[in-house]
């Protein structure tokens, strides 16, 4: 019986970034406009498997999804045991820029979710000429922490279990059970302290609401998309962000939570395709 392989291919490469060397895992599929996908805090690029396998998207876009260092199948740097992982605005921007350079991407679209949705706005602010467009999924320029991050990394609480239990609150009740639990499984597999280290950026280091009005959306269009049931990057926070980023386009996805591409891929596609079509018509 012939195997029905999925269309994406996975490869490893070495990335030099910020003075460290990382073994990075990436998957890609398709040809055309580069569409770089950034996963959420504490998870990995498996969240984008439905995008990578969708011929309606890969016929026009070269979809690339990579695991950040410390996540998924990408390694932490040598000597990682000697420090606690903590993602910063500066370090996160550097890694994405270095990946774009290493892969020689020209005029890419970047679609990030959650912390990925926050960093794309930083990138749009600083280098609007380079990027074709930004899609911020569940991304806001100002957020408020609502639990103590120390719960995520301590010996008397199972890190994988607590991470999944926390983020399950951010999935819409009507999302298919199969995909809800696949999304949570990724959280159950994160390395010790990695989700906590990501949330340092997401909650404590990533606010940029004072600089949002400076984003030039004529040079780099910004699309904000958030789920109705997202209790972290709420629709209200997304709408507030959109009001500060002049010219941005905002979509509130009804019946969706914080993980559109993995918790309800079919519903997400109905929201995403018109935006991708619009982006495909933007001159490089």
């Amino acid at each position: 019986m012939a195997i029905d392989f999925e269309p994406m291919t996975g490869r490893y490469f070495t990335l030099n970034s910020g003075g460290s060397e990382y073994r990075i895992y990436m998957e890609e599929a398709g040809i055309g406009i580069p569409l770089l996908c950034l996963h959420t805090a504490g998870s990995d690029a498996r969240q984008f498997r439905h995008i990578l396998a969708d011929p309606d998207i890969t016929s026009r876009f070269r979809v690339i999804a990579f695991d950040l260092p410390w996540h998924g199948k990408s390694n932490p740097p040598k000597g990682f045991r000697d420090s606690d992982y903590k993602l910063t605005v500066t370090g996160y921007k550097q890694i994405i820029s270095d990946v774009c350079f290493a892969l020689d991407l020209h005029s890419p679209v970047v679609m990030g979710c959650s912390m990925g949705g926050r960093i794309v706005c930083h990138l749009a602010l600083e280098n609007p000429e380079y990027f074709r467009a930004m899609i911020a999924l569940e991304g806001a320029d100002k957020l408020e922490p609502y639990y103590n991050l120390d719960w995520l990394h301590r010996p008397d609480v199972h890190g994988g279990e607590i991470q999944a239990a926390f983020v399950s609150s951010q999935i819409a009740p009507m999302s298919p059970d199969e995909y809800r639990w696949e999304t949570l499984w990724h959280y159950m597999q994160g390395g010790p302290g990695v989700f906590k280290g990501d949330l340092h950026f997401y909650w404590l280091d990533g606010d940029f609401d004072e600089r949002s009005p400076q984003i030039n959306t004529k040079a780099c269009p910004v699309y904000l998309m958030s789920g109705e049931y997202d209790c972290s990057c709420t629709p209200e926070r997304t709408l507030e962000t959109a009001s500060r980023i002049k010219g941005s386009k905002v979509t509130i996805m009804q019946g969706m939570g914080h993980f559109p591409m993995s918790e309800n891929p079919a519903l997400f596609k109905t929201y995403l395709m018109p935006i991708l079509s619009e982006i495909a018509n933007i001159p490089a």
Partner: protein
Amino acid sequence: MIDKMLSRVNADARLVHRGRWVNLTFVLGIGNDDYLISIVAGKITAIRRRHLATDTGEFSIRASTKSWAKHWQAVPPRDYHDIFAMLPKQIAKIDGRLEPLMQNLQYFKDVIAKMRTEEGDTNGH
């Protein structure tokens, strides 16, 4: 009404198994009423209405009667669909010794959500 939590939880063998390390009493506050929910090895052994000030539990989870009614709807509205969506909106409040709650968070969320019915529960308790 709250009594049905006992029978529903104990009839769910998988949920009881996930809570097999849980041995404690916690307080579920519904409006002005507190209920002491006692658990042994994942099974609820008793649900008692609190009468004495000295009756307490390891931790408490409280919300208004109307808020729990929304939480227990078959398809809850946003902000009411999960205890950890209710907390940041200050719809629910947790207090006490949180370690056992955090060690078994999905279990406790599922225990409380057992009050959810296909028809929804508009009475709260």
